């Protein structure tokens, strides 16, 4: 047993850090570190920068253009990005649909879709949830009916993250009404510019437009855009869920946010407040304990024995900690965080109150989503219980 990374791994991290240092605009990093809202261009610009280096596809196999990094290297890359304040890599393209295309797509599909994902040029979103199908995803009702070389898609998706910017959406659609609900689902790629696609951004309680409703009204989708076999969609979705696991705890961002919390406590003059300090100390313990869990999963992957039973725990604990971080920042700031200063949320100047504290309450509100999305924590506890009790 050994806690420390190897000299090679540390050297790798230093290289990554140096590269980020040379390529990440400090003003953009400052926005990220201050918890400000980012524009489409800011997010996509950084993705393209990574794409030019070949690092947006950092989790892909070398054969498909990935850098061929080990799980530990991927983790160290995530860590370096997080600590530097890089804009988040939106997972829908490089982390979610790409592995599906790699695993289930035809060579033609791979050649058609992967380059745009790897370069950051094509913005993807995920069409899974529907108004009536959240935790019970298999009950989804958006239907795709075969019409020659096309599917005709009708239905509605919701909670579609950043669909308002997206070029493409990958969807689970119903291609067969009979049989078990799981057995009639297919995995379809849909061009957002197709006639019949309508997007309505949903205002969230922090005032931000981050998710959308997406309607499909007789949208014609070439059969060539189906990944895998017809009615094989559920298998693909499960594969994707297991693939999504790696960074599910978001430990690296939480480590960075813990530092931000500590700096905030110092700046607000409550670093020596016993009660708040204890809360921070407890959270530090929680984060170290989560990091040990993450490292154990990484080490297990490294030795080829993936610790599958820990993934749901990572999601539960990781999301709780993300929420607690925002909660404590709000408590540290106190009533001065109450003004809702819309311009300050994107870094614009405001005359009143204190702009630096403005993002804290919206972020606290926004992060309530982490225990809801990606399989609510109640669903995750069901999964853990299933492995224990059958």
């Amino acid at each position, binding site marked *: 047993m050994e806690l420390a990374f190897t000299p090679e791994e540390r050297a790798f991290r230093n290289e990554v850090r140096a590269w980020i240092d040379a390529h990440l605009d400090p003003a953009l990093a400052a926005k990220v570190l201050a918890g400000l809202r980012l524009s489409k261009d800011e997010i996509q610009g950084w993705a393209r920068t990574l794409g030019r280096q070949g690092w947006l596809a950092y989790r892909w196999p070398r054969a498909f253009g990935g850098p061929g990094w080990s799980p530990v290297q991927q983790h160290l890359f995530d860590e370096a990005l997080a600590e530097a304040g890089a804009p988040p890599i939106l997972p829908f393209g490089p982390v979610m649909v790409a592995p599906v295309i790699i695993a289930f797509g035809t060579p033609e599909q791979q050649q058609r879709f992967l380059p745009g994902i790897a370069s950051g040029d094509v913005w993807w979103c995920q069409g899974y*949830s529907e108004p*009536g*199908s*959240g*935790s*019970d995803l298999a*009950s989804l009702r958006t239907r795709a009916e075969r019409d020659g070389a096309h599917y005709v898609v009708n239905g509605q998706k*919701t*909670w579609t993250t950043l669909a308002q910017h997206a070029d493409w959406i990958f969807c689970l659609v119903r291609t067969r009404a009979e049989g078990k609900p799981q057995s009639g689902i297919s995995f379809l790629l849909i061009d957002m510019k197709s006639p019949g696609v309508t997007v309505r951004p*949903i*205002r*969230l*309680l922090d*005032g931000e437009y981050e*998710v959308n409703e997406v309607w499909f009204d007789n949208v014609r989708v070439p059969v060539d855009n189906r990944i895998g076999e017809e009615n094989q969609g559920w298998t693909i979705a499960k594969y994707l869920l297991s693939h999504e696991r790696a960074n599910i705890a978001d430990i690296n961002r939480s480590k960075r946010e813990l530092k931000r919390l500590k700096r905030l406590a110092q700046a*607000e*003059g*409550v670093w020596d407040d016993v*009660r*708040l300090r204890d*809360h921070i100390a407890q959270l530090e313990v929680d984060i170290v304990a989560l990091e040990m869990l993450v490292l154990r999963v990484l080490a297990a992957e490294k030795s080829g024995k993936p610790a599958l039973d820990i993934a749901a725990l990572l999601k539960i604990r990781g999301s709780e900690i993300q929420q607690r971080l925002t909660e404590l920042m*709000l*408590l540290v700031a*106190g*009533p*001065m*965080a*109450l*003004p*809702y*200063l819309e311009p300050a949320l994107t870094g614009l100047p*405001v*005359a*009143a*109150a*204190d702009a630096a504290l403005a993002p804290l*309450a*919206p972020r*606290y*509100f*926004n992060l*309530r*989503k982490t*225990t*809801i*999305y990606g399989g*609510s*924590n*109640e669903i995750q*506890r069901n999964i853990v219980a299933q492995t224990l009790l059958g």
Partner: protein
Amino acid sequence: MDFDLTDEQLQLRDAVARWAERAYTFERRRADIAAGGFDSGVWQALTELGLTGLTVPEVHGGMGQGPVEALVTLQALGNALLLEPLAAAWVAAAMLQHGGGSALQAVWLPRLAAGELVVPALLERRSRHDLGRVACQASADGDHWRLSGRKHVVPAGDQAAAWIVSARAPDGLALFWVERSAAGVHLSPYPLQDGSRAADLVLEATPAQRLPGNGAATLQWGADVGAALACAQAVGVMERALALTVDYLKTRHQFGVPIGSFQALRHRAADMKMALELARGMAVYALLKLTAPEAERRQAVARAKVQVGQSARFIGQQAVQLHGGIGVTDEYAIGHCFKTLTQLELSWGDTSHHLGIVAAGMTEEANVGA
């Protein structure tokens, strides 16, 4: 020992609730938020219901009512997620009656009853939950005073006719009456997280009238009244949040059944009910203890704010969680309940602050009765 409402109190509660249901719909409230968070029509209606003068003595044109009436009113208005600063106005009225002196009272109490808005302006950049941390300076200028400093998060601050402002005078902390028309007043309004309106108030050698009472004592009185009223209002919000959640659990289906049939969610709802009932009792406790001697009053209010704060956070967070995706949207009431509860927890001293007061003032006894 008796927790029944009198017929008059029941009538008051029902009248307020009926008005809210009829006139203060979620849609109107949404429009009010979009328009800046303060609706003078709503304020007018509250005035007509007698609520702006609820706690003003009858001799000054008010209804002369007490803590229980304040409790039932704010609970009903909390339930409706009222944006307008009725509670803050009552705190100002309480401070005016406590330390304002007869001259100011004679002029202003009737105006409060008639719907003129006066609010406390106490919070500063470094005060957090300790309103005694005051940097605003007061200097004597003949027979009046001049104030210089900046106050934050003043409820509907730019809508007020006057403010009660805390400042540091040469002889210690004091309270001042500052009128809207005074020189050197600068206002920067903004919405708060819950959509209500507030403002920064900047004073530059602004003429002001000093409240004759003991400034620290009146400030503490105002803080205790404010915290107790926040408790009452929060209970109303929590009732709404639990009701919405119960409805949702009954109607939302997943896996072919209402999600309210899943035991883990049922137990969560039971825990929310527990949190609500504990908070409800403590809100009563805080209001009824407002007439107790200062030390006892302060300890009681602190205990109540701890319980209510904890209940508010738990209920707010769980209500959102049990709603799933729609819980985090702006379009459904539940997210607004959550934001309002968050704001109330952070107002007039947060949970941690009040736990500190409880811990510091703790003695061997912990009885509430007799």
